[in-house]
């Protein structure tokens, strides 16, 4: 298949796991012989590796994540982020004409004028598959300000294609916000990638130092504060525990300060961003993966990677990953507060909550069923099914699609200017 993949960011440019997941799936599809072109935004930080013949970095990204942009948002920028960015319509047009894909594989479009891009694909009658790892439809359909949300209401219901969601809870969250997805809606789990780690042979000995790990963004929704508070309590009780945090984020400095204030500088270490191989090695050297994230966490790659390394995930009950891995069987769950997290860790240290059986089963099932080589079979089949679906002629010329986009942009601008 010729697959055009669109993502707002693409490694090395990235914000979180969604973009990494995109790259992993693209690599896997290429490994399977598919011709995959990636269309993404122009580099933001110009890291090494950004220039790559298989990745077209031409789209204009109206981002909201850069700390430098906090407080500078405007209705017009929101419009270009969510509703329509004619520049990107034109870029998409050029890529469709030169690459002639069989199917378009859509990842996170926030920041690119998402709705109009999807609409343009629909009008061109190109089959598409959207891979959701967070609440993009909800963000598109219910960002509640002024006329913008009305545009989204107007456009969203006509978008029909294949939607892959990493969890049912993510679909439920979207549906609750009226972002009901139309077409073929399926759940496909997240995955691990790369060489499968060896099965763990050494497990935590109660009473010894409990080596905890976390990887991901360093910011409040992930429960970093809860984590530090629990560790602080256990250290104050004289229990042996240490935590290594891998990743970065807007609030890293704040949490480093918090760790210092709690007197945890010896046992809590912030390592920043590390490569995938280094992370997997590190996880293999830890006993528990702390993931007291917010309940709406759609899935996350990190708990799977931890389980694959035999590092038992201790996650918020109800988070997306618990739809796929069973609490008490493949991972441990806990209520999202410091007291419950502390209690669970205390029970692990004193041996009343043994890690080995859970860790062993979790590692086995993730290595067998959640490796990208397995999951990609499903994704590939969905892409193939869309690509083979009988296609009508384009609803309108590309010139007209561009003009409608421009008309919508200018109307939105004129309305939003008064918001």
């Amino acid at each position, binding site marked *: 298949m010729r697959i055009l993949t669109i993502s707002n960011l693409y490694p090395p440019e990235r914000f979180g796991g969604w973009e990494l997941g995109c790259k992993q799936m693209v690599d896997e599809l290429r490994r399977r012989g598919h011709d995959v072109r990636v269309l993404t935004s122009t580099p933001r930080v110009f890291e090494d590796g950004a220039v790559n013949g298989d990745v077209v970095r031409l789209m204009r990204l109206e981002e909201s994540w850069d700390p430098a942009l906090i407080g500078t948002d405007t209705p017009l920028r929101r419009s270009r982020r969510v509703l329509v960015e004619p520049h990107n319509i034109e870029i998409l047009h050029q890529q469709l004409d030169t690459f002639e894909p069989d199917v378009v594989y859509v990842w996170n479009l926030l920041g690119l004028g998402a709705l109009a891009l999807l609409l343009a694909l629909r009008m061109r009658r190109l089959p598409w598959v959207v891979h959701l790892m967070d609440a993009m439809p909800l963000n598109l359909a219910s960002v509640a300000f002024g006329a913008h949300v009305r545009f989204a209401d107007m456009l969203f219901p006509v978008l029909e294609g294949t939607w892959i969601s990493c969890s049912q809870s993510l679909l439920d969250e979207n549906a609750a916000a009226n972002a009901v997805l139309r077409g073929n809606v399926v759940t496909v789990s997240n995955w691990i990638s790369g060489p499968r780690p060896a099965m763990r042979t050494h497990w935590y000995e109660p009473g010894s130092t409990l080596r905890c790990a976390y990887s991901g963004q360093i910011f409040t929704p992930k429960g970093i504060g809860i984590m530090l508070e629990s560790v602080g309590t256990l250290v104050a009780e004289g229990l042996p525990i240490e935590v290594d945090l891998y990743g970065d984020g807007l609030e890293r400095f704040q949490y480093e300060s918090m760790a210092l204030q709690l007197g945890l500088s010896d046992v809590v270490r912030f390592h920043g961003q590390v490569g995938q191989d280094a992370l997997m090695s590190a996880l293999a050297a830890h006993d528990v993966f702390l993931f007291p994230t917010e309940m709406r966490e759609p899935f996350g790659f990190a708990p799977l990677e931890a389980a694959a390394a035999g590092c038992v995930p201790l996650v918020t009950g109800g988070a997306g990953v618990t739809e796929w891995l069973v609490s008490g069987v493949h991972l441990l769950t806990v209520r999202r507060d410091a007291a419950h997290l502390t209690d669970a860790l205390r029970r692990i240290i004193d041996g009343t909550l043994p890690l080995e059986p859970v860790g062993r089963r979790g590692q086995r099932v993730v290595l067998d069923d959640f490796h990208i080589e397995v999951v990609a079979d499903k994704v590939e089949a969905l892409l193939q099914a869309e690509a083979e679906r009988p296609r009508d002629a384009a609803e309108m010329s590309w010139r007209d699609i561009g003009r409608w986009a*421009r008309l919508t942009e200018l*109307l939105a601008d004129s309305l939003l200017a008064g918001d």
Partner: protein
Amino acid sequence: MLNMAKAVAFAGGDGVTVEIISPAPQAAVRSLGPGVTLRGVPMSPAGAAYGEGVSWEFVAALESADLIHVHQVFTRMGEAAAIAGRMRGVPVCITDHGGGTRTVGRRLGLVDMVDAAIAYSRCGATALGDSANVTVIEGGVDAEFFHDTSASGVRDRFLFVGRIMPHKGVDLLLRALPDDAPLTVAGTVADATYLELLHELARGHDVSFATNPNDVELRDLYSSAIAIVQPSVHIDVYGRVYQYPELMGLVALEGMACGAPAVVLRTGALPEYVDDGLTGFVVDNEAQLRDRLELLAADPELCAAMGRAARERVLTLWDSRIAGERMLRLYRRLAEN
């Protein structure tokens, strides 16, 4: 638009319903006759100036529509409605009635981006850029309702009907009015300053003003008129320029349907509907206007003959049943495609 809506619903019988979506202070739906409903939708922001507001309620209303015809398309609401229709994938028709507030649609070629642009005159087609995508459907006057109701057959007044605003040229009519000829000026006052000017010009003449007459009153006015006069101008009394002062001239057609000759200035679409010397007169200036008014006032036979020819022309070409059939044929063709 209402005439056309009713005519389309009539032409389609039970199989066609027309919903007119229009600004209103509060959301409400009411019947306007067989097959035609009016859905009032609040505009946002509330109290927005003409052409500046948008209602989003229409998105829900579009759910069951097989086709959307956007009138006054060169406004924010018109643009939003056209976009919504296009996004839903239903055929979109547009019409410009003049007085639009947005230029972007013209600039981008909206006329060619929709399924059909519909003008009510050749002048209207020109105003839309004479695109091949423009279909002209002339007329749309209810000639069954608008007929001569005068039992006596006496026609003793000239008549102007329309919004009281400068480009309608009522001042020119008053200046051209023969000294002893009565005139009735009927319509909605859209410009109070202009009305004051008209009152000044009317001094010394037999001029009456009828504000907001209903359709029955209008019909009676048409039926007692020596002629219906539409003196719309390209340059008004204040020097303002109007490229297309009339895109159809429904008032002239209603008057003609009631047996009144039409006297019009050669502006906009007006000459298209008047066969000069047969169904009325087409004039170029104040002097010609005065001359033709004097001619008609002095010759009731000529007036009656022209009136009969005018009604016959309306019945043959511009009756709403004919226009409705044509419009429905176009709608059906678009919907089937």
